[in-house]
């Protein structure tokens, strides 16, 4: 099949996990995708226009890492599909014009066999050799000219971090794209044990001829690994890292949260003082500013969570964490490869569900997807912040950190039980794929990478949540105000729900805020802020808490937010799958049946367990 020569070329970046494909892609296309020191960081392909060349018109495709041309997990399948089904991702040809195979110079013995497989399959390709600077520093650089000679294809050394060697790489791409002959590549169905052995022997021979003799780079066991992987100290480090991660979210964010809070209170006061009292002022102050301010307070916590996760990602610790977590995760039917998806689910379930593609076993992957929504995502942080104010005695604020830690622990308990029970109920045959992960070299996190990625992720959060909150706050204000404040639409809806809310020990106002939370969980906070603003409190979050403390059931002096009902709400938010975007992603990653069943089950369970918590506490004499 002959590709049309007049069109833009299609170049696919391919290579083993963590070889540096995404860094190169960013340099070639001028994109700013997050690069991470964890094998399996990319789970989806991306397409970008080649900007680094003036003369070559080409589209560049970044792909998830592969170990061989025979895929064993969904992310590998995504990569392999780009080699033969480019037409499915909007290109006008099936196979790429050129493969840019990315090889990590610090482990040529293990990365070069893939080059041979690709050549054997008949793909036109050239090699980009990354991390040769590290290899050179340790006295074992790859002689790139010799490698090119032996392979019979161009090979270029390039530094993914600094971009050194990019010009040479681009000229090699231009040169190769000028002289492409029509190729008819075909993927191997499977590879026999002997083929794999021979490819490795071939690679060993190649390495002998273009790398100075000596110990491979990984031969020295780094001091960090001696500690981080030690049977005893390893667990201590693991516990310390996880505690530090969540502690920083709670305590380091505190001053920033105070500032944000005062800022929004000031804006609200300013607006109500400078505008005449009217329905519009009320909409602006009670609806928009109160609603947005109630959630904006929690942005510092979310930013710090993203920052801390970024530091872990860039250092190389994540793969070590996965190794240590495998034992415990396997007890409940999960896998060490579930660790990173579950950890990132503490930020957001959506990228986490996609990261689960790296789990090769179907059953383990489905169970991971099942429990991902039970992790306490960042959208729940505002809810915890608000509810904990009722659970923690006012004279003992230090209990707050402890209470938040308990919430995270509780989410782990629920997830373990759900995985275990799900493993029994979902009739998926077990897979025999075990657990293997490459441990990348440790590296000092680059300040820039970590900060830029945390900034991008936080900004994304603000944009997504901000728009939803703005819309919902306005809609909510309308529902609360019309036809009249005493008999609004929201009151009517809340009344209908009342029988369901009674066991949870809350009133109709909480009920409508729970419904609003289906737009996004943090909307629960802004919705309550709107409810109580309209009923006459001031705008800041402290004001909201004050208003909630005074709230009583209509026509009685019984308080709505007691220890028992608030604890019930915490349980509800821990379990309920209210995020419709998560359901949509689950649908795409699994099936309609799984996603809808998961949502129904988690909402029903949340209601049942929340009611049991509230009523149980009351039976124990706790109001």
């Amino acid at each position, binding site marked *: 099949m002959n590709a049309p020569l007049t069109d833009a070329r299609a170049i696919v970046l391919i290579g083993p996990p963590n070889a540096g494909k995404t860094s190169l892609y960013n340099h070639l296309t001028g994109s700013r995708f997050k690069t991470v020191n964890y094998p399996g960081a990319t789970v989806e392909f991306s397409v970008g226009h080649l900007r680094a060349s003036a003369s070559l018109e080409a589209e560049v495709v970044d792909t998830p890492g592969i170990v061989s041309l025979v895929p064993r997990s969904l992310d590998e399948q995504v990569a392999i599909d780009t080699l033969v089904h480019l037409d499915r991702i909007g290109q006008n040809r099936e196979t790429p014009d050129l493969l840019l195979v990315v090889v990590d110079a610090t482990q040529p013995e293990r990365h070069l066999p893939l080059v041979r497989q690709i050549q054997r399959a008949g793909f036109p390709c050239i090699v980009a050799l990354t991390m040769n600077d590290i290899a050179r520093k340790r006295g074992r650089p790859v002689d790139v000219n010799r490698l090119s000679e032996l392979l019979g294809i161009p090979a270029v050394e390039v530094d993914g971090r600094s971009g050194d060697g990019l010009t040479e790489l681009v000229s090699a791409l231009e040169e190769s794209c000028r002289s492409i002959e029509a190729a008819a590549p075909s993927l191997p169905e499977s590879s026999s044990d002997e083929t794999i052995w021979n490819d490795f022997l071939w690679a060993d021979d190649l390495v002998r001829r273009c790398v100075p003799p000596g110990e491979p780079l990984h031969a020295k066991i780094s001091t960090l690994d001696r500690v981080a992987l*030690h*049977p005893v100290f390893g667990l201590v480090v693991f516990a310390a890292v996880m505690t530090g991660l969540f502690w920083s979210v709670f305590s380091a964010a505190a001053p920033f949260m105070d500032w944000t809070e005062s800022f929004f209170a000031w804006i609200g006061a300013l607006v109500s003082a400078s505008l005449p009292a009217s329905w519009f002022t009320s909409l602006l102050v009670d609806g928009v500013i109160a609603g947005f301010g109630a959630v904006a307070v929690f942005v510092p916590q979310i930013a710090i969570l993203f920052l801390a996760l970024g530091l872990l990602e860039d250092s190389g610790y994540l793969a070590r964490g996965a190794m240590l977590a495998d034992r415990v995760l396997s007890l409940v039917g999960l896998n060490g490869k579930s660790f990173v998806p579950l950890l990132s689910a503490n930020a957001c379930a959506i990228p986490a569900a996609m990261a689960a593609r790296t789990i090769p076993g179907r059953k383990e992957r489905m169970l991971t997807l099942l429990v991902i929504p039970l992790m306490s995502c960042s959208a729940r942080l505002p809810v915890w912040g608000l509810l904990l104010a009722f659970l923690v005695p006012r004279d003992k604020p230090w209990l707050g950190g402890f209470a938040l830690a308990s919430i995270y622990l509780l989410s782990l308990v629920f997830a373990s039980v759900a995985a275990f029970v799900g493993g029994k109920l979902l009739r998926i045959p077990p897979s025999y794929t075990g657990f*293997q992960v490459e441990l990348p070299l440790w590296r000092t996190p680059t300040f820039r990478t970590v900060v830029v990625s945390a900034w991008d992720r936080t900004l994304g959060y603000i944009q997504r949540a901000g728009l939803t909150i703005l819309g919902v706050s306005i809609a909510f204000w309308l529902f609360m105000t019309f036809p009249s404040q005493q008999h609004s639409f929201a009151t009517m809806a809340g009344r209908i729900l009342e029988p369901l809310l009674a066991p949870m020990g809350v009133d109709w106002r909480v009920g409508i805020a729970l419904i609003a939370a289906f737009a996004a969980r943090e909307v629960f906070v802004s919705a309550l802020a709107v409810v109580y603003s309209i009923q006459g409190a001031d705008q800041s979050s402290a004001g909201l808490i004050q208003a909630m403390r005074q709230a009583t059931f209509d026509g009685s002096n019984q308080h709505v937010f007691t220890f028992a009902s608030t604890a019930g709400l915490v349980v509800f938010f821990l379990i309920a799958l209210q995020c419709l975007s998560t359901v949509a992603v689950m649908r795409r990653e699994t099936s309609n049946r799984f996603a809808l069943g998961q949502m129904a089950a988690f909402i029903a369970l949340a209601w049942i367990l929340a009611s049991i918590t509230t009523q149980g506490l009351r039976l124990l004499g706790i109001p």
Partner: protein
Amino acid sequence: MNKPTRLSELATRQSAMIGTISGHPSLRSRLHELGFTPGATVRLVARAAFGGALACQVRGSTIALRKADAWCVELQA
């Protein structure tokens, strides 16, 4: 002292040469592809607590794998 016959029995920092790989076909191929091939040298770097995963060096890379997977890597006598 008996010579270890499987990767899972290797002591920390001990090296050995790989013999054959047993186990389920899909696991066997993946172990091969990761570089666990007959004749390659493997060295145990660390073991996680409570019978957890093992970290070992093979062909210039460090790979962590479950103890049960390591059991499938037989060593040459």
